[in-house]
């Protein structure tokens, strides 16, 4: 095992996959000598050259469209878009093209594209650089969506995403410096499998991305109150590991869904509907299902306001505690 940051984990996955296959190509803005906006791709152009690291003009729509076209011809492009907010600009090539090319060609073309972009708040970059826009894409058949949290998951899932024959959106939180242990040897993590980050008996906290860490912290605090919280990191949003979710909730009988994106219309709704759409899990529920997500506001620049928007450890703990103290 070795200690490694999220940034390094992603970079290792890129490095290994690019070394394995010359058709794995990084495409994006300023990801050469500048190393990318979050320094994830630093050093890769020196190793792989312009044949595998392609810097582009500020043209998000065409960059992703170009990657889709290149993928149709056998490239395995990994597009980096600097901020998830600019996914708006990439939504036509992703939603109307990447997701549909295989279908529209009755299987004769495919789009083995990885779309990497960071989502979420915490950087003081205000309303146009801190959104969690995963909900823009979760309702699109043809796409796969991954949103890992730990260095281990980031590396294993990114390598699987690169090898996947279908378009994969790979969302990253911005805690690039967070460190953890990963194996020395190569490994893959299957897309579509969630992970129990912490076992528990009384309540299931279901989440993904940055708020996995928030949920873990909340679970630790809840232990003091003798509430045993299970933390389930779905890791993949589409396809969702419904079995794991249903198992966990059937066991605990209580569920709280957490994410950074605003509550209303967010992906938490899908997770809740998955739970209560299942007769067994629904039958096991002891209380209503709660959501602890971002507030309904564009992210303010002001630091204390930005913080106030996010689902905090306190809000999770309060919500869970309330599930035990009040009657249904």
């Amino acid at each position, binding site marked *: 095992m070795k200690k490694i940051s999220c940034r390094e984990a992603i970079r290792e996955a890129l490095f290994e996959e690019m070394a394995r296959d010359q*058709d794995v*190509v990084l495409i994006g803005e300023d990801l050469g000598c500048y190393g990318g906006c979050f320094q994830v791709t630093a050093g890769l152009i020196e190793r792989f050259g312009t*044949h595998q690291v*392609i810097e*582009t*003009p500020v*043209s998000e*729509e*065409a*960059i*992703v*469209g*170009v*990657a*889709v*076209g*290149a*993928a*149709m*011809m*056998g*490239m395995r*492009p990994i597009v980096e878009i600097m901020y998830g907010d600019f996914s708006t600009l990439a939504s*036509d*090539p992703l939603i*109307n*093209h990447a997701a549909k090319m*295989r*279908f*529209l*060609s*009755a*299987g*004769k*073309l*495919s789009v083995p594209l990885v779309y990497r972009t960071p989502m979420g708040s915490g950087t003081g970059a205000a309303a146009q650089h801190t959104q969690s826009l995963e909900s823009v894409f979760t309702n699109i*058949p*043809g796409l*796969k969506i991954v949103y890992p949290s730990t260095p281990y998951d980031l590396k294993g899932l990114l390598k699987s995403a690169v090898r*996947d*024959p*279908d378009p994969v959106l790979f969302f990253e939180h911005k805690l690039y410096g967070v460190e953890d242990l990963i194996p020395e040897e190569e490994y893959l993590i299957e897309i*579509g499998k969630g992970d129990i980050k912490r076992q528990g008996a009384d309540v299931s906290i279901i989440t993904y991305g940055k708020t996995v860490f928030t949920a873990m912290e909340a679970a630790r605090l809840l232990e003091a109150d003798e509430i045993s919280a299970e933390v389930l990191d779905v890791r993949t949003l589409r*396809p969702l590991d419904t079995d794991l979710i249903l198992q966990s909730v059937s066991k605990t009988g209580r569920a709280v869904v957490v994410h950074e994106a605003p509550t209303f219309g967010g992906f938490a709704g899908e997770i809740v509907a998955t739970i209560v759409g299942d007769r067994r899990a629904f039958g096991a529920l002891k209380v209503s299902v709660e959501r602890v997500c971002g507030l309904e506001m564009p992210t303010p620049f002001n630091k204390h306001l930005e913080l106030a928007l996010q689902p905090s450890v306190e809000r999770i703990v309060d919500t869970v505690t309330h599930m035990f103290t009040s009657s249904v």
Partner: protein
Amino acid sequence: MDFTFNSAQAHAALTLMLTIRLFESKIESLFSSHIMHGTTHLAIGQEAVHAGVSPALDREDWIVTTHRCHGHTLAKGASLKAAFAEFFGYSDGLAHGLGGSMHLVDVEHHNAGSSAVVGSGVPLATGMALQLKRKKSNQLVVALFGDGASSRGAVHESMNIASVMSLPVLFLCEHNMYGMSACAKDMVSVEYISDRGNAYAIESTVVDGNDVEQVYKAVSDAAHYIRSTGKPYLLETRTYRFSGHSKSDKRVYRTREEEVAWLKRDPIEMLKQRMLQRTYIDEKDFEKLGQNIQCEIDNIVDEMIDHPRQLSIEEAFSYVYSSKEHGQL
């Protein structure tokens, strides 16, 4: 223009143009008798572009088409049968009935299909060229787009990228004077879209899109330029669609006089006259040719209507993702 077809070339072009014209006319009649459903965009009048583009390319060169894709698809080699079947939504169609009129695709003949999002096919074509170049292929990609599409930002972004990256793309603007109802002179800020080449340091020219020999020559030259320099090229072809924009169009946005003036420049008639003059053909040959094609088309359609084959929903699901386990019912 000095370039002229020899007899064989002229015959091939005439046959192709007539085939496309009769194919589309058949489609039109199947729609108006409500045998076909959905919508369709005919390009009657633009056959010289169809017959001038793909036949001037190498077989391995790729094309990316638009919503108005029938002619180019046939010109690139698609079988009449598979094309018709697609219009019927049948499983022996080009896209097994999943795409329909706006999404004819024919990978075998290096036709990557169309985007029905106007202009959005252009970045795809540019990306295809990027990978072909990386693989040191000699192939080029033709990005077809209309005068309407020229206003899309994606086209600008693609031309800039193709220029700075030196990609083997032939940007081919099929300028037929109108978007849907919108006249190019009201919507496009330059008289000639080809003049925008300068803005991207891309070589460009404009030709008469109703003159198949001119189009063929210009495409051959452009392809030669692209292959020898590795740079993109922008070619504008000026033409006119005789048909309405789509099946429901009453053409209130243009005058009958304008239409009549263009009808006098019918590309098939123009080629025919030249062939008559050059004694490559006589009136009887021409009539015969038309009858033969019509007969073939009618037979195909009659036979097809009698044998509908449609995908099941399970089969359709198998095309959503590569691995079947992700197709959900």
